[in-house]
């Protein structure tokens, strides 16, 4: 066992006044939800940081969960001890011994509990000297130590930790407002969702499903992707929109080279309606400038016309390689590349306009009777709430 506590640090510039309390409360809530399966492990607020008492649970597994929670800047394994110097020394030694590769170290003491009688400088000496005396082959290096022993004397005890593990940064999910993610099942849109979560947005998702042209696996894939996103500190509500009728209608009624543009305008309209119903204030998608014909500026200009809310595109400036890298890091890549047909690729005409015009799109749509169809798609949607803590299939869970 490395530790009995994990220290959670956060740093965002705009943490002032009431914001700070909200930020801390949201972060603490997200941590405790993520740690729900570890009975006993709970986050507590102390000045300027949070502390998770691991209560004998698997601290590496807990650390793994915490590394997924936005709003955390860095983490440390720590041991808690009393205000007695002998305890502090013995614990510091134990913490250092938990770092077998450490050949050099330094002690950095901090004393926010000011009634503690030993000043920080003196404490550095007392602890460093004790560790030196009781180890072999370990020396002090104050400039570039292998390990920095952090001794933090606080009102209700002393925390001793070694080294910082980077957190994911960002803002706690739920500290910004709600967005509606257009989630296709490809590589890009899950990454866009991840980045929205990273900036603290609460995320719901819409997915367009066109049975029998897209099958259950394509839908399952999107559920699985949502579950991975839900692992970043939140539950995700997924709206699966029945889209077959609209697609067939467009395919029949619209000139081939505008089919794709009109279909995307329909998706935009449906997403916006769901967003309004769910009090989301923006749409998020995985578009990157110029990546495919629907992602030229002309296309975006024409498609976005029908949405009366901001359309956020977190990937807009990224190359495919950069997006793929993130997908690999966040664990969505393997799922995203499963080869199932999604509704963007069926009925796809051989040629689409790369520079569609708003006037033309509006002209074609003037012959369509779409209101009722859109309404039906929205109201017949299937809503699935995905909680990362719950097994994806209880029936399977029993077998495993």
């Amino acid at each position, binding site marked *: 066992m490395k530790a009995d506590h994990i220290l959670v640090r956060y740093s965002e510039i705009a943490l002032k006044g009431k914001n700070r309390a909200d930020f801390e409360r949201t972060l603490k809530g997200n941590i405790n939800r993520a740690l729900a399966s570890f009975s006993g492990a709970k986050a507590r607020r102390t000045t300027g940081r949070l502390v998770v008492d691991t209560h004998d649970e698997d601290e590496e597994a807990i650390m793994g969960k915490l590394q997924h929670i936005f709003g955390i800047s860095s983490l440390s394994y720590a041991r808690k001890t009393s205000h007695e110097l002998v305890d502090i020394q013995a614990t510091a030694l134990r913490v250092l011994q938990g770092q077998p590769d450490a050949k050099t170290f330094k002690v950095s003491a901090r004393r926010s509990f000011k009634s503690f009688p030993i000043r920080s400088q003196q404490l550095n000496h007392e602890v460093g000297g004790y560790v030196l005396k009781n180890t072999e082959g370990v020396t002090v290096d104050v400039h570039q130590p292998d390990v920095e022993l952090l001794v933090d004397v606080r009102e209700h005890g002393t925390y001793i930790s070694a080294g910082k593990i980077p957190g994911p940064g960002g803002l706690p999910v739920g500290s910004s407002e709600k967005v509606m993610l257009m989630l296709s099942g490809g590589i890009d849109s899950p990454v866009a969702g991840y980045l929205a979560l990273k900036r603290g947005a609460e995320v719901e998702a819409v997915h367009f499903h066109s049975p029998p042209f897209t*099958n*259950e*696996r394509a839908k*399952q894939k999107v559920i*699985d992707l949502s579950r991975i996103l839900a692992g970043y500190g939140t539950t995700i509500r997924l709206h699966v929109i029945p889209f077959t009728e609209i697609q067939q209608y467009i395919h029949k009624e619209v000139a081939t080279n505008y089919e794709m543009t009109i279909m995307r305008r329909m998706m935009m309209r449906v997403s916006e309606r769901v967003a309004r119903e769910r009090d989301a204030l923006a749409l998020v998608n995985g578009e990157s400038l110029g990546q495919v014909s629907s992602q030229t500026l002309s296309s975006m200009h024409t498609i976005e016309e029908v949405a009366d809310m901001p359309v956020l595109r977190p990937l807009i400036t990224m190359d495919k390689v950069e997006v793929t890298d993130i997908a690999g890091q966040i664990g969505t890549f*393997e799922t995203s590349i499963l080869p199932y047909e999604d509704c963007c690729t069926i009925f796809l005409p051989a040629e689409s306009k790369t520079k569609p015009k708003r006037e033309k799109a509006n002209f074609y749509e003037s012959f369509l009777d779409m209101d009722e169809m859109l309404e039906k798609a929205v109201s017949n949607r299937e809503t699935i709430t995905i909680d990362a803590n719950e097994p*994806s*299939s209880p029936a*399977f*869970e029993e*077998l*495993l």
Partner: protein
Amino acid sequence: MIYLDNSATTLPFDEVLDTYQKTAIRHFGNPSSLHDYGSEAEQLLRQARQSIANILNINTGEITFTSGGTEGNNIAIKGAAYARRARGNHIITSAVEHPSVLETCRYLENHGFEVTYLPVDEEGHVKLQDVKEAVREETILVSIMHVNHETGAVQPVEKIAEWLRGREKIRFHIDHVQGVAKVPLPLKNSGIDLCTVSAHKIHGLKGIGLLYIREGVQVEPLFHGGGQEQNVRSGTENLPGIVAFAKALRLSFERYQEAKSTLEKNKEMLIQACREREGMTVNTPENDSAPHIVNVSVFGTRPEIVIQALTKKNIHVSSKSACAARLQTASEVLAAQFGHEERAETGLRFSFSSETKDADIKQLMSALDEVVPEIRRVNEVKI
């Protein structure tokens, strides 16, 4: 019945059989089929893979399901050797490996590879220094087992992995068949590239196992076909076996953890009892050995005869690896450890499970006290 041959195979847990049967009936679809039965089977396969990945703390993409230990070792060794052939042709292994490693290496010797078989010391341990000295420019693969199947010796694989970690050219394979769920072996960031595990040694079913292939490591497939298992191992997935494997792995990790102190106590008790007997020598090393295997040489007997006599008393033990037991020769493992002397020809192996009770050990000892003097009397051996 007292079953002390758990290194050969184990009794499947009831829960594992239950899972196998339910999966075989409810989810018989081919995971590659597009209909609902197929996609349900595929979903279950993914969840089982995820569950195993969580237990072993590896990524799902690093798991290739195989038919068991022999296949895992074959894919790892031949697959890595052929994938790295352009870089060199030298392989390092030890003299005490399981036949599925040794014979695979001997096969490769007939196909243009050179193999160094490292010796072991009196305790049956490979030395890191020997590995270092054996490595040369052409070395592309090192394959060392974790826990020895006959003596229970735990090899210093973590140290070897650590040393090999920076040597990008050399792949490191571990035969972890006897160690999994019994002796911890963290895989993540360890320098281990390939690792073989089998289900039936941990109360799963026969015919299923896995090979850990670290992300980025290439192996040539031995089977070609539909491209299942990331193209490494084509063939329709053995879904009931895999799901039951996931269950067996989970339960084994829990139950061996709980049984750890009992296992160690029983092992100590048996070793102590054998030391007290005339003409018995313990071959299991005192340090760095697994908690579930005890190997003892009983002088003046032939192991086959002791095994027969014990099995009549409903106590089931073995001599060497089950895969070599039918050959009437000395144990290669013990011979590597002690030379070809009587000690290598008279080894008996007792291997426990999480269910082994101390009463079983006591009964084993009193049975040995009965049958061994009788066998020696017939053989006219005086101790």
